[in-house]
Structures are given as structure tokens and as C-alpha cells.
């Protein structure tokens, strides 16, 4: 029973009217998620700046509060005080709606991410499918933003967005199916409970595919083609300022937090861990993933758009299919007691497949005759 249901039961026993029994805990839960998510996003922004500074031989923000922790708040105030500019020939309605459509689904993702035993807003029995469905809504918002801005750079970004997000959805979904197969459930809570050994050990290839796919889904380097500042300046949010820009900005970090949470839940054993309270374990795992993403951002150059597509279709997708087949066969043939055999087998498969693929295929792409 989740904490929310316990709360509902408590109110029911106190003879509250039916509508209040359902509404009060729901609203409380939503507010809690909002506060939780926004606080963590602010800490994330600070952490990214500090860590990126360290990677780049500089200090990073350190003036505003201890260790510069209040710098994101200063940034937020600055952004909110900016004039809200709407381009003359923009589609006013779409330009207004787009940031909301990008940001709201990201918040909705947190409804099914468990941060502790029963600490989940709704324990949907189709939690994973909900995540897949909701996370693909943002791309519509991004395309709306880029189209409505009436800017050529953002139009290029919008076209890239559609291609990138749709292509990377497939490997991400296929690698999640492997997890669901082994766990025997789509519910996020059940998946965490099924992980005696974190699935990252059992399905290393699945984790790598999910991680790379998720990087592309959340537009982080080296797949940050939507906002490639050296090519298309800021991409889809080039014409946004003020609160609308803040929505995109928060959304960017929100999606990273969401995907890091999903990764921690699906592959790293979620809230489970010795000694420390569950929420701390969850946050530790999320921060490790986030730091890894920052590390990649600080190190790697960007892929080109055609290379990005061939990476999805020639590398990730076939590997995800093969990974799924291997997992399915193992679930069918090998008994659960042979966990360690599965782990060794899968690491072997992962290494062999990655090696084979890197020999067989290149990213390709080249000059087009015009």
C-alpha cells in the first residue's frame, strides 16, 4: 500500500466526505512533487555549474551564498525580470502554449517514480508504459515552439527535434522491455522490489542503450543538436525570454532529473540500499547519473545530424532487439537461481556485440552531390 493510499484510509476513517478523501491527498502529493522537483532542479543547476567548472579548470559560481549555492536563485530572479518578447510574426497562441506543453509532461513523469517504499504518487500497474507515453509529448511542444517562433534557426531545430526524438524512442522502449520481462511487471514499485541484484549488472547492454537513448531524448551532449549553440545558436528556444524561457530551462533539467530517476529505478535498484534511508539512496543514484551526464557534456564534441540518425538506426536499435531476444531466451531457459551465470553471460554478450558493431558499421555520412 502506498503512502498516499494510507493517507486516504486515514481520512476515510475520520469520516471525511468522499470527494475530500480523494482530492486532499492527491493535491498534497502534487504539491509535494512540485516542491521536491523544483528544489532538486535548483540544486542540479548549481551542481552542474560547479562540476562543469571543475572539469574546465575553473571555479564555477562561488560568490552567491556558501559555495555559490544561491546562484541558481539569482539566475531565476534575473530570468523572471526579463522582458517577455514575442516576435512580430510569431504564432502568438502556439508561442505561448509551447513552453507549457514541454514542461507539464515532465512534471507528470514524477507521478510514477518511487523514491522510497510506497513513496510514489500513483502505483500504476502500467507505470513504464505511462512513462513512455508521457515523455513523448514534450517533442510536440518543442516542435510547436520552433515553428511558432518564426525563426529559421529554430525551424531547423524543430526538424531535428522530430527526427531525433522519434528515432531514439524505439531503442529506449526496447531496452525497457527487457527489464519488464525479467521483473515480470510494468509497475515501477514491483520492478524495484524485483531487483535483488541491480539490473545494470544483469543487463549491461540494456543499460547502455537506455542511457544513450535517454541522452538523446533529453538533448544532452553529445546529442544536443536541438540547441547546438555553435550551429543554430539556441535552437528551439531562441525567441523565448522571461518566464517562458524559464519553463524551457526548468524543463531541460526536469527531464534530466526524471530520466535519472527512471534509470535509477529500472537499472540501479531504485531506493534500495543498506543503512541510509531510501530517499537518500535514491538521490545518491540520481546524482551519480547526473554527474556522469555532466562529465560527458564537458568532454565530448557533438555528433552531426545524419550521424545521429545512423547511430540510432544502425547501432542502438539492432542492439536493443538482440538484447531483448537474449533476455527473453534467458528468462525462458535459465532458472532464477542461476543469476550469476546470467550476469557473466550478459557482460560477455554486451562486450562481444559492441565490439562486433564497431567493426561492422561506421557512422558514415558524407558529402551530398548538389
Amino acid at each position, binding site marked *: 500500500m502506498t503512502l498516499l493510499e494510507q493517507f486516504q484510509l486515514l481520512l476515510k476513517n475520520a469520516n471525511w466526505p468522499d470527494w475530500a478523501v480523494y482530492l486532499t491527498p492527491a493535491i498534497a502529493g502534487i504539491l509535494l512533487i512540485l516542491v521536491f522537483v523544483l528544489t532538486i532542479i535548483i540544486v542540479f543547476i548549481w551542481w552542474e555549474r560547479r562540476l*562543469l567548472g571543475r*572539469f*574546465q*579548470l*575553473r571555479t564555477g559560481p562561488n560568490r552567491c551564498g556558501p559555495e555559490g549555492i544561491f546562484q541558481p536563485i539569482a539566475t531565476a530572479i534575473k530570468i523572471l525580470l526579463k522582458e517577455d518578447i514575442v516576435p512580430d510574426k510569431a504564432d502568438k497562441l502556439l508561442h505561448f502554449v509551447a513552453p507549457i506543453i514541454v514542461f507539464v509532461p515532465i512534471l507528470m513523469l514524477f507521478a510514477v517514480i518511487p523514491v522510497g517504499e510506497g513513496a510514489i504518487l500513483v502505483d500504476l500497474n502500467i507505470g513504464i508504459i505511462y512513462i513512455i507515453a508521457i515523455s513523448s509529448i514534450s517533442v510536440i511542444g518543442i516542435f510547436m515552439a520552433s515553428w511558432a517562433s518564426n525563426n*529559421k*534557426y529554430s525551424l*531547423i531545430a524543430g*526538424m531535428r527535434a522530430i527526427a531525433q526524438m522519434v528515432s531514439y524512442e524505439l531503442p529506449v522502449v526496447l531496452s525497457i522491455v527487457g527489464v519488464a520481462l525479467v521483473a515480470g511487471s510494468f509497475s515501477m514499485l514491483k520492478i524495484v522490489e524485483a531487483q535483488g541484484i541491480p539490473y545494470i549488472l544483469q543487463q549491461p547492454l540494456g543499460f547502455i542503450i537506455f542511457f544513450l537513448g535517454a541522452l538523446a531524448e533529453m538533448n544532452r*551532449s*553529445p546529442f*544536443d543538436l536541438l540547441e*547546438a*549553440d*555553435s*550551429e*543554430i*545558436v539556441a535552437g528551439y528556444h531562441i525567441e523565448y525570454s522571461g518566464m517562458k524561457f524559464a519553463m524551457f530551462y526548468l524543463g531541460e533539467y526536469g527531464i534530466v532529473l526524471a530520466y535519472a530517476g527512471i534509470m535509477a529505478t529500472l537499472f540501479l535498484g531504485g531506493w534500495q540500499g543498506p543503512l541510509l534511508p531510501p530517499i537518500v539512496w535514491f538521490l545518491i543514484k540520481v546524482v551519480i547519473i547526473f554527474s556522469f551526464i555532466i562529465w560527458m*557534456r*564537458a*568532454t*565530448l*564534441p*557533438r*555528433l*552531426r*545530424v*545524419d*550521424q545521429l540518425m545512423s547511430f540510432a538506426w544502425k547501432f542502438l536499435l539492432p542492439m536493443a532487439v538482440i538484447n531483448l531476444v537474449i533476455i527473453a531466451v534467458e528468462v525462458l531457459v535459465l532458472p532464477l537461481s542461476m543469476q550469476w551465470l546470467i550476469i557473466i553471460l550478459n557482460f560477455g554478450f554486451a562486450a562481444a556485440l559492441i565490439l562486433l558493431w564497431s567493426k561492422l558499421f*561506421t*557512422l558514415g555520412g*558524407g*558529402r*551530398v*552531390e*548538389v
Partner: protein
Amino acid sequence: MPIKTEPFYLNIGPQHPSTHGVFRLRVALDGEVVVGVEPIIGYLHRGIEKLAETRTYTQTIPFTDRLDYLSSMTNNLAYCLAVEKLGGLKVPERAEYIRVIFSEIMRISSHMMAVGFFLNDLGAMMTPVLYMWREREKIMDMFEMVCGQRLLYNYMRIGGVSQNLPDDFMPAVKKFLAEMPKYIDEYDQLLAQNEILLARSKGVGILSKDTAIGIGASGPVLRASGVKWDIRKMDPYSIYERFDFEVPTGDTGDCYDRYWVRMLEIRQSVRILEQAIAQIPEKGAVCADVPQFFRPPRGEAYGYLEGPKGNIGFYIVSDGSIAPYRLHIYPPTLINITALSDMVIGWKVADLIIIFGSIDVVLGEIDR
């Protein structure tokens, strides 16, 4: 019935993060593919050539700083070489060594900026630039020691250099030279075999040998195309014939070669510097005896040298007065970007940016 389509025109610049200044490219796109490109220059035009006609010969030296502001020293030197050729001046031995030392340090600095910003154009989020800046900072400190400036040095003079080296310069440069090979190895470790860098730059934006020679390209851009041409070797100026170094060349003339040739040239510059530091005379004048209002005889002279970005030349016509009658600047990067449209047609927008970055342009020099 075929659908009627038309190219998508995109203005890259004059204000754009990757144009290295105020450069404007009018690009015709078919989807993401570049089908036409038209460079529009002149946003930074300051009329340096005309200004020089109203200044004395010495007063023009600060203007040359502002041409290619990432390699001010070599600009100074090229101008001074032209004036010295015009006036038939002899430069003291110690001054020649100081000039070579600073030219080579300048080359290292300029190449590091070029490589760093090339990686930035590739999307590497400032990290390579900031690593390169760690070393460039030491170079800036050394420049500050001798002339008090960190960007626009105004250090070379007609017949020598403006000041003698301070006492703390030699230890600083020796320390720098001892550390530098280690740091170059570190850059290579970070970049040279990076899978994404290779995928993005190998075979991209090829400048063929014939085209490179045909347009009169020079510097690393020419050498990356496989032409072994370096004025320091072919037509040694100053005292370059005394030093032992190699001229690195590329094979194909793609973006990767242009990057790699620069890295190799940094190593060669370190080699030259080590020899120069060992050979420099302890004492001696650093500037020939040149009057303040220097009046070269009537005539004309062309002074040129191998700058970090290529062959930079100054053509001076003198009418015997204190100011040049006419000064013309031969800017290497303007010549090098004339091949831009040959290189970028058929590539994607992202490639256009890195090809432009790999040429290493500085707009101060193109617009003059």
C-alpha cells in the same frame, strides 16, 4: 507533378557564436545541406591602410596589432621587416633572437586558440578552449613581462624591439618550454583519437592540393593539403636559417588534417624556441639606431613572413617623407577563405561551421 521547392536562405552572422567575429555568411540550404554560400565581409573595416598614410612609420605599428589580434607579434614583425627592407637597416643580433622567440611563442598561442575554438565549433562546450587557455595564460604573462600588454603588444620596433628582456623572463620561458611537451601530449590524449572528433572531421571539407595552390592559400591550411611550403624554410627571414625544424604536412586537406598540422607545428615551435633560448647572446643592443622620424629613401618594399595563419605581407611605397605613401596588407586568412564555397557545398550546416572554424580566421585581418 513534381513539387516546387526553393532553397532556404539562412543568414549566419554577423552576430553568431561561431563566426569568430563579425562575419556574415548567406547560406542557401536544401534541408540541412548547404547548396550555396556567399560570404559578406567588411563589418570590421577600420581603414588601417589609409590611416597608415597619415602616421609616421613607428606610429603604424600599433595598427598592425589590430589586424590579426591573436598574433599581434608576427604582424608587428612583418611590418617592421618591410620597413627595414625599405630603409636597408641592420637589426642587432640579440634583437633578432628576441624576435624569433616571440614569433614562435605567438605561433603556439595562436594555434592553441585555433584548435580550441575549432573544438568549440564541434560542440565540445568550451572544455578544450579552457585547457588551451591554461597554457596561453602563461604565454600572456610572458608578453606582459616584456611589454606590459596581454593582447595588443606593440613590441617590435623598426630595427629591433622596444625593450630588453626583463630578468624574470628567461626562467619563465624555460619553465614553459619544459612543461609544454607534456601538455601537448595531454591535448592529444584528450582530442586526437576522439571517436566523435574523427567522425566529424575526417574527410570533411577537403581542400585539394591544386585548389589550395590555385587560390594562393598559405599557412597550416596549405600545408594540411599536402604542400610543403613554409616561408621560414623556403625564403628564410630574420635568422630562421640557423634553426633546425621540420615542416609538418597533412595528406588529404580535410578538417582533421588542418587540426593535426597545427598540433604538430606547436611541437616544432617548441623545438625552435629551445634552440633560440640556448643560442641567444647574453648582452647586446636590442634596437638599431633609428631616428624617431624615420625617413626611408624613395622606393617600395614588400616584407612578408610565415605568420601563424599564413603568409602575412606588407607592401610599402615610400616617397621619402615620414609617412608611407601607400601601405597595402596581404592578409592570409582572406585568401584562405576564398576556397570556402568549394569546401562546404554539399556538406551540412554543422560541417559548414567546423570547416569555417578549421580555416582559423580572424576578422580583424580580413576586413582590415
